[in-house]
């Protein structure tokens, strides 16, 4: 549905040229929700604006629904933009127009008759749950309600693509959840292709099918959300994920020296990551049964799911004879589970409160 190839964007600034995008290739399939995550300044907002040509790429091609956006004339581009809805971090609603008139805005631009506008706007108001707010002004609405107006407005022209530029970044967590749910519903019901720009991994985890991690103008990593979550490769990806899924050791071990060799009274800490059907497989029970002599202590456990696929993260502490520990590790490595050996760590004396 959307294909970007070799996108470069160079800005002239007083302090010299700024290379914001350095050769981005990206393909987004029809009907999927594609997430683009990056820190501020990574180039993600510029990238999404290249899709509807609010920013013209310095080099490269942008195809939306088979149409090369970079070669269109101004009037062709305006027509093409009507197929691409966009919502914004700060909503960008007209303060001087009512909720109804804001949603009707794109239709008025195309000269739709007021009877047809009415037929279009009323169901949209209902879809976003604001039927009773039609005659209010944006200033009278909460942030979440404003974004709902933004979404309804973006949908008024029956677009094929919806671009979401940090659409939930100005909202509190609960409101974020409800807006994400709404985006998921319209993606599903209207088979809309959605591009989500965010700096919050929570948003990616909640609604995206695939994700690209953008850093310093290049795509550092990309893949299905489940793969990227369970097996992040790039440092920046790991940092994003660590916000949601802590990589810290349990408190009793945190800050203590980590040794690769057994030391007196230490446990071998091992991080295990299960995904899919394996997440609820009794791997640990089997290990304990088959590797006698190795003691296994559960130190941390977390079971989550991404798009209905469960995935678990555990930290266990192994102790016992070296051979027993080794055979336990061998057993785990033979299972469908990712094993990361952290090292031998001593437990701090229990803190006294």
């Amino acid at each position: 549905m959307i294909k970007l190839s070799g996108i470069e964007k160079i800005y002239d600034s007083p302090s010299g040229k700024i290379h914001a995008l350095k050769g981005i290739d990206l393909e987004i399939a029809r009907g999927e929700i594609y997430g683009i995550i990056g820190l501020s300044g990574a180039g993600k907002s510029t990238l999404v604006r290249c899709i509807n040509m609010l920013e013209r790429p310095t080099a490269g091609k942008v195809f939306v629904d088979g149409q090369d956006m970079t070669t269109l004339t101004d009037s062709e581009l305006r027509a093409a933009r009507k197929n691409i809805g966009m919502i914004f971090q700060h909503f960008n609603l007209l303060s001087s127009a009512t909720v109804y008139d804001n949603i009707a805005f794109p239709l008025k631009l195309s000269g739709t008759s007021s009877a047809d506008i009415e037929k279009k706007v009323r169901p949209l108001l209902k879809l976003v749950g604001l039927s009773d707010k039609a005659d209010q002004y944006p200033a009278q609405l909460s942030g979440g309600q404003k974004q709902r107006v933004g979404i309804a407005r973006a949908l008024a022209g029956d677009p094929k693509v919806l671009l979401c530029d940090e659409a939930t970044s100005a909202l509190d967590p609960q409101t974020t959840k409800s807006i994400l749910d709404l985006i998921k519903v319209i993606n599903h019901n209207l088979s809309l292709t959605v591009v989500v720009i965010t700096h919050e991994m929570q948003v990616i985890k909640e609604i995206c099918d695939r994700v690209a991690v953008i850093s310093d103008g290049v795509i550092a990593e990309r893949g299905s959300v489940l793969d990227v979550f369970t097996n992040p490769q790039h440092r920046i990806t790991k940092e994003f994920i660590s916000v949601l899924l802590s990589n810290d050791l349990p408190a009793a071990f945190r800050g203590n020296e980590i040794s690769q060799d057994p030391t007196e009274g230490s446990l071998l800490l091992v991080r295990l990551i299960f995904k899919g059907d394996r997440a609820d497989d009794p791997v640990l029970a089997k290990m304990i049964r088959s590797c006698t002599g190795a003691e296994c202590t559960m130190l941390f456990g977390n079971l989550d799911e991404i798009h209905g696929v469960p995935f678990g993260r555990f930290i266990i502490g192994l102790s016992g004879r070296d051979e027993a520990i080794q055979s336990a590790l061998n057993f785990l490595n033979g299972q469908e589970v990712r094993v990361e050996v952290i090292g031998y760590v001593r437990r701090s004396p229990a803190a006294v409160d």
Partner: protein
Amino acid sequence: MFAEVLPLLTKALGETIYMVAVSMAIASAVGVPLGVLLHTTAKGQILENIFINQTVGSVVNAIRSIPFIILMVAIIPLTRLIVGSAIGTTAAIVPLVIASIPFIGRQVETSIKEVPSGLVEAAQSMGATPFQIISRVLLPEAMPGIVSQLTTVIIALVGESAMAGAIGGGGLGDLAIRYGYQRFRPEVMLATVVVLIVLVQLVQFVGNTLAKKLDKR
């Protein structure tokens, strides 16, 4: 005494209102589009054109730097060309208009500048033409500010119209100078000042009320 001053006052008030209203109408018709032009041709705006922006900007600054009393006298040939005479109430309208156009232009530009750029971007993302962005986004969103600014311009015009007496324009200012000052009639001076104060208060009140009514933020 009062019965004697009253006709003078009403006539002068009528002349002032006539000068201010006609000047304001003509100057706004030119000044508002000028303000739009000044904003939209600036760097990074929808009709960016640095050459036009700087040229027009320089002309605006040049006119604004001329004191009104001097402008009025300096353009007498132009005034004569337009209204056929260089003296009288109608003749005073020409310099008032010329002085107000750049003033309104800058005021409108300032108001439009306060419209968040995100709104323009949103309209562009919906396929709006530059004209639609101006008529449906920039002007409606800036309207409360423009109304407030135009109120200021009207009040400035009341002040400038007082100088119109210098070219026989009449009005309240002229009355105050000729009767109140030159003929030593302090009660005429006082009455004129009171009428001016009431007039300005009234304009400000109407302007504020209208701006507030338009402002939905």
